[in-house]
């Protein structure tokens, strides 16, 4: 019910069509990684999935935003089935909840820039994606470019405005033999940028 309202509202305001250019929607275990410019990113990517895949494709969301208010927390945990992570201050390895959920067979949606940017093209990626790619080589890594979200709901704004947004899904990639961390992260970033 709440999921239907959120999806209806999202479609009415920002559209949010998913364009599967490099692969098709699949129940295969995957990590979708995308550029990050808006709180709507999580919802758009999740809404672009076919309904039957949504429960198993879990967005990774920052606990300091999505875990804060009661409404955000409810949406994050009950509707989006999100994996909440601590971005700062935690002494424990922040990747642990992600590893747990991958081991349980779920797919993930992550934003490797770590924070929302104002520019159209993604900033450099943080190392988490590399560690996950290294530890779970059988999981497909799918680059996604989210277009127009920085205009529809930019950082620092209160309400989204009706500007049509699109999620473009690229071809799956994997960590190459002998590839170093910076090489891999730059290749992943370029893969997202190539869809812009």
């Amino acid at each position: 019910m709440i999921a239907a309202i959120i999806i209806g509202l999202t479609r009415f305001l920002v559209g949010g069509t998913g364009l599967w250019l490099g692969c098709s929607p699949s129940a295969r275990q995957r990590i979708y990684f995308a550029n990050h410019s808006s709180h709507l990113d999580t919802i758009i990517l999740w809404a672009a999935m076919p309904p039957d895949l949504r429960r198993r494709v879990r967005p990774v969301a920052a606990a300091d935003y999505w875990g804060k208010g009661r409404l955000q927390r409810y949406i994050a945990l009950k509707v989006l089935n999100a994996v909440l992570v601590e971005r700062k201050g935690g002494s424990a390895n922040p990747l642990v909840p992600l590893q747990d959920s991958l081991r349980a067979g779920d797919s993930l949606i992550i934003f490797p820039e770590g924070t929302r940017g104002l520019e159209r093209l993604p900033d450099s990626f943080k190392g988490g994606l590399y560690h996950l790619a290294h530890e779970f080589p059988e999981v497909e890594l799918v680059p996604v470019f989210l277009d127009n979200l920085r205009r529809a709901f930019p950082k620092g704004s209160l309400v989204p405005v009706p500007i049509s947004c699109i999620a473009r899904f690229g071809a799956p990639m994997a960590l190459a033999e002998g590839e170093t961390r910076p090489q891999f992260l730059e290749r992943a970033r370029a893969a997202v940028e190539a869809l812009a």
Partner: protein
Amino acid sequence: MIDLPAIEPMMLWLYAGVLGLLVVASLTGFILARRVTTDSGHETVRNLNSRIKAWWVMVLVFALAFVVGKGLTLVLFALVSFYCLREFLSLTPTHPRDHAAIAAAFYVFIPLQYWLLWIDWPAMLTILIPVYAFLLLPVLSVLWGVTDDFLARTAKIQWGLMLAVFCVSHAPALLLLDLGPHKPIYLLLFLITVVQLSDVLQYTVGKLFGRTRIAPHVSPSKTVEGFVGGGLLAVLVGTGLWWITPFSPLAAAAMAAAIVLAGFFGGLVLSAVKRSLGAKDWGAMIEGHGGALDRMDSVTFAAPLFYHLVNYFFAR
């Protein structure tokens, strides 16, 4: 004084005629879609069929608006404005720092413009966007301190608002006019019928007999033959509809000609705008569910002109 109830059975005939025309059009489109083999033929038939589909929606909307009244008509046109503005601003490269101005355009000026129609305040209706939005939107943008392309950014948002909200709202604004015994909703029907028929007849005649392109760089499908032939046919239909309006047959022909001309230039100008933004269709951005501006481009130019002509010559 004309006895209005006496015309009402004729309205039924009008509606029967429109429905009959739509059924014939849909069948023709359906058969054409199976017959054509060439790529350009497919493209043409797809274009025709998407128009026919849009007409079904328009006719159903009109039927509903007739029954339910002004409130529903306003809500529907407000939605049309919303979708047109969304399309326009999605294709226009605005800056993230224009967010406040865009939010005001959508959440303040669309409801306000249609609320003015609801409370019947035509004087404010004609200045809200050209004056107050014109002054307020740049103020909302300037507070963020980003001066790159400031004039161009502000102008684009104002243009979107003028076309999608100000101009489009002049179609339902016809409902505010006092035409004595004549119901203004028939004028809305007259406007939309002439504009849409003019569009499709120009397109069809152009495809059949078009040789001389009017503006090859702007809109390759517009030809002199199509414009003259399709335009004259649309004027003919408009003249034939004089009995649903307060116009004499001659005045109906002149009004239809004004609508055809304004609609033609509207299509041409919006085509140029679209191309300057690097797109072929307004709906291209929103695969599957777009193109509201492709259907409304001629209306945006024809509606304000028609409204003021009727207001000047026929309203009390």
